[in-house]
């Protein structure tokens, strides 16, 4: 499914990461594998350290910390927010929507639209598409897209296939009208037939969480996890990505009448370095134009990896420079989505730490 948008832009980008950091080398004893085996994996898929929330910290806490920072600094006017989208797989509650919790805590206007989207690693792209759709309404002039997840709280610390790769983070992107008439191209594909490839089996109403589902057991892949924990079929997801993403990007560039070498940066979701190097090779993109070092510095924080890649790679340079970027997210659903747009001239583009001592009340 293809989309086009005009006269819209990303006006600012902020990423919030917990200051609490854990190093992979310090976790080897937690895993059911020889140390030499874990060490080899470190070099291949690019794991080194990751940022994790401390106990009790929710995705909304990271988001509120960043939003208050922007409001206090005058980079975001609360009364100008017409739409608030929160993309998360780790909401505060089943109900109410966590976007409403954020709206209430910030004291935002009641004349606005709060929307939770249950999306994962494709969530920045999907959130941008949803936000740009909102901006097509005359009554909506500014949308705050928040991507926030605390996936490490869902993962077994004894699961070497997932835990050392994951991280926690939030990002805030300001979406607003632009005088620039350049077309933003986007596309989206969903394959619900593969919904079990990335999932947390228990904890919903299909399989409520019980002492049995919480029980950690030895899985066939040699890791210890329970049904309450995050689980990913790594090879199936790798194949989904390698098969689906190249034609998705070809379709995007074709509809935009843009050559591969006209794109300055390919800012893709970052599950691990190995997968991205294979993807760059398959696409015929120089590896240096498709950054792949987010996981080794911060961990994979689901939909936040794309804004993290942008701020980590380009940072404040995006307040002055403008680049043609291809964004692409892929993951839970299974979902994949990409956008081709100009990003630059931002009012802010930065990353900040969320202090471990920070406490948010319910």
């Amino acid at each position, binding site marked *: 499914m293809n989309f086009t948008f005009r006269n819209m832009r990303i006006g600012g980008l902020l990423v919030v990461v917990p200051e609490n950091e854990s190093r992979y080398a310090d976790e080897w004893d937690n895993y059911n594998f*020889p140390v*030499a*085996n874990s060490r*080899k*994996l470190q070099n*291949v*898929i690019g794991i080194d350290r990751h940022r994790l929330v401390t106990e009790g910290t929710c995705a909304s806490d990271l988001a509120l910390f960043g939003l208050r920072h922007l409001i206090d600094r005058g980079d975001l006017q609360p009364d100008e927010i017409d739409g608030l989208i929160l993309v998360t797989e780790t909401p505060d509650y089943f109900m109410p929507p966590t976007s409403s919790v954020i709206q209430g805590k910030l004291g935002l206007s009641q004349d606005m639209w709060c929307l939770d989207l249950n999306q994962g690693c494709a969530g920045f792209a999907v959130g941008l598409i949803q936000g740009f759709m909102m901006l097509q309404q005359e009554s909506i002039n500014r949308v705050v897209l928040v991507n926030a997840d605390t996936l490490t709280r869902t993962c077994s610390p004894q699961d*070497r*296939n997932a835990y050392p790769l994951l991280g926690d983070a939030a990002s805030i992107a300001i979406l607003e009208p632009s005088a620039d008439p350049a077309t933003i191209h986007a596309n989206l594909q969903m394959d619900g037939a593969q919904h079990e490839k990335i999932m947390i089996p228990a904890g919903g109403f299909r399989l409520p969480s019980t002492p049995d589902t919480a029980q950690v057991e030895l899985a*066939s*892949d*040699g*890791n210890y996890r329970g049904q309450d924990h995050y689980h990913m*079929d*790594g*090879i199936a997801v*790798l*194949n989904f*990505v*390698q*098969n689906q993403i190249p034609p998705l990007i070809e379709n995007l560039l074709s509809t935009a009448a843009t050559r591969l070498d006209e794109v300055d940066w390919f800012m893709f979701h970052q599950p*691990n370095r*190995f*997968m991205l190097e*294979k*993807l760059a*090779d*398959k696409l015929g993109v120089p590896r240096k134009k498709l950054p792949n070092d987010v996981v080794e510095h911060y961990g994979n924080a689901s939909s936040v990896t794309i804004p993290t890649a942008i701020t980590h790679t380009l940072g404040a340079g995006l307040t002055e420079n403008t680049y043609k970027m291809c964004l692409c997210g892929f993951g839970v659903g299974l979902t994949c989505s990409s956008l081709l747009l100009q990003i630059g001239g931002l009012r802010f583009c930065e990353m900040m730490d969320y202090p471990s001592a920070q406490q948010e009340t319910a």
Partner: protein
Amino acid sequence: MTELTQTIHSILAELRPEADFSMSVDYLTDGLLDSTDIVSLVASLDARYGISIEGTDILPEHFTSVATIARLLGKYGVAS
């Protein structure tokens, strides 16, 4: 045993020194290799033979035995 199969055996032994691959007819169903091991194995094979195995070829059925791995390498011009 050819030089290729010897090399594959030695890479597997380095990857999972505690595992006995000789008694297995399917490394995956027998739990000797998981998805992260396959990633490590592909990286080792890429480096050893100066190739880049495509992501679309990283399928479980290509990593069930030394024979299937050798067949996959044959696709990339690595002679058995």
